[in-house]
């Protein structure tokens, strides 16, 4: 049983909780309202204009999207295949570069770092347009290799930044101890340096993978109409008025993004994060 004093105390505190509750509610509406609309469209069988909500729900469009010979599977495989190739290419280039930038003597190091920063500092659309023009002359437009190359531009930038930070965070005293005990430089790198930098490199790969899976603009200029990734499929469905198919494709696109981001904090440690861009 509550005493009158405690009751009036709780009553007095209530307005203090009311305002935050209202604010959180508004935020939740702003964040999840649009996503809720996406879910409605994904399961709406019939939804025509005057109706404020779908008049019929069902899985009809899911069957249509995942029919064996529908384009969705092709686009899904193309997206994953391109993203994995982009990760491979970006990391092969970024790991040695990141090691050199973090640990070795380099002339004009700050200029090189700036060069890897510029692509994020200016609008990228004219770059993609001109890459498409160049690739057209080289026969790379409409090829998987061309799309992987264009995805590697943002990929490489992220990968070099994070790899540099990851190598800079490696404890040098352990390397020196290994060298003093007689380990060669390559052994030291493989057994001491690489394992310590590994979580950061995994985080970089995840970033590059996600960026490639979601990439639209570069694919739009270099890949279409021959190559259809999931974002291109979604865009075409949406512009064609197929909101159900667009919504289902969008939900598929959300799985890797949200899934990976829920685990990314495990790989990207604070000591690496604080060194990015240095």
């Amino acid at each position, binding site marked *: 049983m509550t005493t009158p004093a405690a009751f009036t105390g709780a009553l007095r505190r209530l307005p203090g909780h009311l305002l935050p509750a209202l604010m959180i509610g508004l935020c939740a509406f702003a964040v999840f*309202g649009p996503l809720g609309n996406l879910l409605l469209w994904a399961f709406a069988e019939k939804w025509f204009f005057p109706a404020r909500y779908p008049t019929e729900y069902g899985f009809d469009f899911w069957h249509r999207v995942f029919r064996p010979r529908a384009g969705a599977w092709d686009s899904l495989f193309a997206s994953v295949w391109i993203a994995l190739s982009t990760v491979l290419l970006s990391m092969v280039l970024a790991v040695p570069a990141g090691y050199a930038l973090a640990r070795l003597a380099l002339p004009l190091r700050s200029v090189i770092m700036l060069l890897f920063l510029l692509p994020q500092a200016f609008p990228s659309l004219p770059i993609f347009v001109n890459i498409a023009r160049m690739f057209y002359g080289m026969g790379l437009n409409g090829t998987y290799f061309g799309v992987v190359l264009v995805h590697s531009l943002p990929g490489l930038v992220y990968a070099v930044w994070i790899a540099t930070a990851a190598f800079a965070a490696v404890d040098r005293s352990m390397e020196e101890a290994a060298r003093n005990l007689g380990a060669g430089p390559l052994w030291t790198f493989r057994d001491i340096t690489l394992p310590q930098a590994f979580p950061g490199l995994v985080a970089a790969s995840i970033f590059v993978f996600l960026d490639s899976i979601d990439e639209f603009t570069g694919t739009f200029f270099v890949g279409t109409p021959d190559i259809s990734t999931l974002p291109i499929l979604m865009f075409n469905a949406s512009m064609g008025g197929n909101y159900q198919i667009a919504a289902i494709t969008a939900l598929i696109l959300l799985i890797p993004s949200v899934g990976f981001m829920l685990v990314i904090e495990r790989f990207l440690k604070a000591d690496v994060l604080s060194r990015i861009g240095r």
Partner: protein
Amino acid sequence: MTLSRTAAPKAPGPFRALLPGLMLVAPALLAIGFLYVLPLVRSVVFAFVDAEGGFTTAHLRVAAELYGRDVLFTIFVALSSLALIAVLSIAIAGYLTLGATPWAVAALRWLYRWPLFIPFIVAGQTARSFLARNGLFNSLLIDSGLMDPAMAQSLLDWRGLVLTFAWKQVPFVTLLLAGAMASVDRSTIEAARNMGAGRLRCLIQILLPQVRGTLLVGLILSLVTIMSVLSVPMMLIAGNPTMMTAMMAHRVTYYGDYPVANALGLFSYILTALAAFAYLRMTMAQRRESER
């Protein structure tokens, strides 16, 4: 350290010492040269070159004439988005730092990050359905009795663009701001609170001046994003005027007209460069002031 040490002892010449690093960084540099520097140079050069290879400003004039309204529209949408992003992220980051209701702070911290992880193309599609006339935005307002059904209208114009850009970028700027605010010395805030200053006053007069640099960096990066995203304006806006990105794509895909597209691209470089310049001047002035 390990590699340079093996190269250094025999030949201490300065070039030999730099060689391993240069060799390791060269492939990535070549790639960025081919995929970024070359297209960048071409985008600027071809805005000024005519069919015979001579210098011309005709493309710039055509671009200004045909797309002047779109350029103004782009500036308007970008500035409105940045204003909304600034206000919302200051409010959210401020509440995360100063908020007195623990459960609300925790809930907000969990909530605000979501759009950060959602790709622009998906954000475009959600906005396209959410803000439409029969979208959930209107429906929920009508159901809750806050709006008359006859008042329902589509928000798929400049308002939709501003809301979508803000939806995507507020979490990003908030993340930066909240990080910067967390590292501000708490004792000045405690002192101000003890003297009777309200939380809002602490936010505006104590916290905000100390994180202004972070806020500006976040806003400039957001501006670059707004000027780069193609999918959102293409999905939200049908017809004119629209964002410069959509017009550049239109010029290339329908007319194969790269010079005018490049001239438009040049305008977008200049707009972001102006913002970056304003930021640099501001930080320089601040530094000079603090040195005095």
